[in-house]
């Protein structure tokens, strides 16, 4: 790993995603957390990966199907009678 000399950084990198998801087994979790205390680069990778996921979530949660798209969908599905039943 470029500029990232700890021997188990690469190994632990494969556990990072599972760690973020809370799916890492307790032993590996402990090992990773211990490593993170002493490894600035891995801490940066963890923090920025978490932030990446947050950023993906942030705007799109607000995006609902546009009203004109909903209307065309209902018409295509012959659900015109239910168009005014707002979700």
């Amino acid at each position: 790993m470029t500029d990232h000399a700890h021997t188990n950084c690469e190994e632990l990198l494969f556990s990072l995603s599972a760690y973020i998801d809370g799916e890492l087994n307790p032993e590996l979790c402990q090992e990773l957390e211990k490593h993170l205390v002493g490894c600035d680069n891995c801490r940066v990778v963890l923090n920025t990966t978490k932030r990446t996921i947050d950023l993906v979530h942030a705007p799109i949660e607000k995006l609902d199907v546009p009203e004109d798209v909903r209307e065309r969908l209902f018409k295509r599905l012959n659900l015109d009678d239910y168009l005014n039943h707002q979700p």
Partner: protein
Amino acid sequence: MNKTMSLEISLEALIAGDRAEFARLVDAYSSPIYRLGLRMLGTPQDAEDVLQNTFLNVWMHLSTFEGRSSLSTWIYRIAANEALMLIRKKKPEINLDDSQAGDNDEDLLPTQFVDWSALPENVLLSSESQKYLDSAIQTLPESMRIVFVLRDVEGLSIKETADALNLTETNVKTRLLRARMFLREQLSTYYGERITREE
């Protein structure tokens, strides 16, 4: 997961052909399916095609739904297939099988170590940043992107994502890790340049 997912939908009513119940189902899932289409194809027109084809298929095949997965997972499976089929149609040169997911571990290794995670929200969420993120997501290989969209954008669990895509959980985790690492690298380059510029 989206709040609409908690709506109680009667499967019995749906299978019996209850149109009002189907309309409720469409309203409950149309936003997440539209978003999936948008993230996978990148244009509102294609997202609308994915949306319409998904619900046409849902209605057509409801009677054969066996309940082996949840209704939600089943709808996502149909939507994912629709999105991938449309991609194949538009870009026949794209290979969507496993080998495209990137087997090279070298690709995974981080090269950017700028900590931009504490940048203010107005910088992280600026419209320019969002555009950059959207285009970075579009450059993910499709087989990785669909996993990323279901898991990280729509909030399905690993198991639900695996069920929806007919993949093993291990395969989902691998693709997810690669997608996250890829996007993290892209954003690190982007925000790193901004941090350097301000210094």
